């Protein structure tokens, strides 16, 4: 029993956190699933069993279809755009330039700002209003003589969600840049040197030596951006409010609970979000912890 005396205190010290996580993460997730299977569909809380009724209603709900479609457009634009700019910025900085620290800080700064505050500014930038109420990019296009570029931005019928992804790309490119920059700097200089000695042109050095090294970074970046995207809420609320045209599942859940008091259907959306994220994250977590143990 000497060993329990050895590790017992450690377990004791962590136990408050274990209890909190067990109750407030796993316990509440279970409770939420239960709500989604219940008949709690009005302000007054009820706990009767309703099976999959809420999920079935969701499936038949055109507003749900639309919010899933919005989320797909948003996610595609956001992930491709952020990966592209993140990699590009890291590529520009990786060999070191004068003032690198300053530029890095500039690229990352949007991350210190809330989506709510950023949303206020981006709503001004992407203001679709005409005439006296116009502002932002549409006005700038007009002044630069490229007024034909002016558009409805986030209120656009088909690509509104792509426009709303722009602030998200702005906010997170710096993060992905930081990840890639760490990746670039992890490539042993001898490897590049060896390729150059073999007469490889610089772009071939990148293509065959550096980029393969960055693959794990891209995987991490995809997981991070993917789970941020599935949960996207603040940004949408800040820019689009509660309009159907910019609605995503997380926003729809909020509307269902607060305006329609449909808790079961709200909980069903929450459960589906959790399932979506789990499919993305669980294999990655298991893989990360395992490879750490191997190291």
């Amino acid at each position, binding site marked *: 029993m000497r060993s329990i005396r050895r*590790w*017992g205190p*450690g*377990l004791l*010290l962590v136990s*408050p*956190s*274990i209890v*909190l*996580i067990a109750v*407030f993460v796993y316990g*509440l*997730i279970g409770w*939420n699933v239960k709500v989604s299977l219940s008949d709690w569909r009005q302000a007054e*809380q009820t706990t009767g069993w309703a099976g999959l009724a809420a999920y079935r209603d969701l499936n038949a709900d055109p507003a749900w279809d639309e919010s899933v479609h919005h989320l797909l457009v948003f996610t595609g634009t956001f992930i491709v755009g952020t990966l592209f700019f993140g990699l590009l910025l890291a590529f520009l900085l990786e060999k070191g330039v004068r003032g690198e620290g300053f*530029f*890095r*800080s500039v*690229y*990352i*700064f*949007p*991350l*210190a*700002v*809330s989506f*709510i*505050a*950023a*949303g*206020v*500014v*981006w709503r001004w*930038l992407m203001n679709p209003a005409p005439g006296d*109420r116009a*502002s932002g990019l549409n*006005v*700038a296009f007009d002044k630069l003589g490229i007024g034909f570029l002016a558009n409805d931005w986030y209120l656009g019928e088909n690509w509104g969600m792509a426009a709303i992804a722009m602030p998200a790309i702005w906010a997170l490119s710096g993060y992905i840049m930081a*990840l890639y920059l*760490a990746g670039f700097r992890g490539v042993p200089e001898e490897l590049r040197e060896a390729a150059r000695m*073999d007469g490889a042109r610089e772009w071939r050095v990148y293509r065959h030596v550096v980029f393969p090294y960055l693959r794990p*970074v891209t995987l*991490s970046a995809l997981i*991070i951006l993917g789970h941020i995207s*599935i*949960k996207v*809420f*603040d940004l949408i609320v*800040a820019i689009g409010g509660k309009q159907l045209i910019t609605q995503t599942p997380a926003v729809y859940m909020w509307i269902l609970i607060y305006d329609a008091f449909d*808790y079961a259907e*709200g909980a069903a959306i*929450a459960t589906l*979000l*959790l399932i979506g*994220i789990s499919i993305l*994250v669980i294999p990655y*977590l*298991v893989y990360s*912890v395992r490879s750490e*143990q191997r190291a």
Partner: protein
Amino acid sequence: MSTATTPAPPIPAPMRLGRRRASRTTARFVKFAAIVFFAVLVLTPLYVAVVTSFKEAAETDPAHAWSLPSVWTLDAWRQAWDQLSPNLANTFKLVIPATVISTILGSLNGFVLSKWRFPGANLVFTLFLFGLFIPYQAVMIPLTTLLSDIHFPDQIPSLAFAHIVYGIPITTLIFRSYYATIPEELMEAARMDRAGMLRTYWSVVLPISAPAFVVTAIWQFTSIWNDFLFAVFIISDPDKWPVTVAVNNAAGSLVSNYNLQMSSALLASLPTLIVYILLGRYFVRGLLAGALKG
């Protein structure tokens, strides 16, 4: 690569070098121009926010949208301060205790899970980590029900409590990665002295923990300050709104008062921006830690 064996084209050596040097200088210039261009692009929203916040309301029309204020005025800032100072106070009341408590919890957990492990420590850590990724929507309905059912003291403490609980995964992760770098010899020395767990933590680990405390505290401060989701679900009383909720709701109701909207957004962002400007280096380290193994 075996391309090195092919003979070089017959260009005189000095000329070839000169051309290559010239193209390298051009490439470097193009690169630097691109770096500056993107920096300007990233700062554009900040520019319009600052400029508009110092304008008079009349000057926020389309014709002057992008120009500097002709008259610089603090009116919009004063107005924003009058409207938001109670909410700023709410946010401070929330952020400070939540940051301090979740950072301390993270330090204790990180220490145990890396240096004073118990059987199953890795499983516990993995289960914690999952909490880092969950969509908080998946706990929100039961959480708000629970908090009101048990009559948790008040709305701001409820919100602080939520941030502490859901902050455990990230704070534990940052400290655990940091403590993993403490050399085993140091722990061995403490063991030789037959120091117990708390003694070891207090006299060996804690004194070298300052950087991890800074990284974690900044991370928690920034994310709790900027939180909107928890606040909007947990806080129903408008007097208790943190500043993010207040800014969002005010911006929704004042459709075109751009100078006030911008000064409000800036005022609400100043604390985190100041922290970022002063301690940005630690902020980036937190970011990288949040990406697990990067």
